[in-house]
């Protein structure tokens, strides 16, 4: 099982979202079991390497397979992720 790495702000955000959107929690469970089975490549590694759709939202994450950690970086509405991936919106860069 992979560990889930989240910053406190995002953790609180997930907690709030999870009450109304259980699909997010369900996908996070699968991420912990086998993130590579559901990961889609963003082709925008400077932003975030992978994403997975979870109902109305998308979970953006990176992985460290050797240490078995999933870094959950953002939860976005799919419409907004689409705009970022299509270049209509500027993505944040690290």
């Amino acid at each position: 099982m992979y560990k889930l790495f989240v910053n406190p702000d995002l953790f609180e955000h997930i907690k709030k979202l999870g009450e109304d959107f259980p699909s997010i929690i369900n996908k996070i469970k699968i991420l912990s079991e086998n993130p590579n089975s559901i990961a889609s490549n963003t082709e925008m590694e400077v932003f975030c390497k992978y994403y997975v759709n979870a109902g109305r939202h998308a979970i953006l994450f990176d992985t460290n397979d050797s240490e078995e950690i999933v870094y959950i970086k953002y939860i976005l509405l799919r419409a907004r992720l689409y705009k970022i991936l299509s270049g209509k919106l500027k993505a944040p860069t690290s």
Partner: protein
Amino acid sequence: MSHTAELPQSNHLGFIGDYFLFPNGYKAVSNYKKVIEITTDENSLKESKKIITLLKKEVQDLPIKKENLNLAELAKQAECAKNNQHQINKMFSIIENLFMSEDEVKIDDAVMLNFLAHMKEAKELIDYISDYITLVFDVNKAETDLESKGKAYSLDEFLEQISPKAA
């Protein structure tokens, strides 16, 4: 119940679109540094329009494109939305088109939508709009230092803290 809008100054930080419901009033975070406290008659659209005007003055302009939005129409719809799933669905479509049709959305219009939704206690709308607004700022914030601020959870720990029911 008071109908005047009071504008106390405060150093409270929050995200635009965050709303805190208090008895007989709402606090709207209009920019990152100011909280506006508004007392209002929930059933009075006339009062809400007055307050929207005040809100407009207080919301900081951000460098984003204008979006034409028929607020009067949406106010009417918000009024019906509280108990009417069909109306709520219609609002969702309007809002989704709003956010999809332009590269960016005029943020004070989005704030006002959120305010209207709160006014009419349309919970689904509140959550939906707040999600969009908050996430605009989450995505455009500077990247936080994950490694110093974040924490690694096992799945069980994660679920237990997110929601004991989910665990």
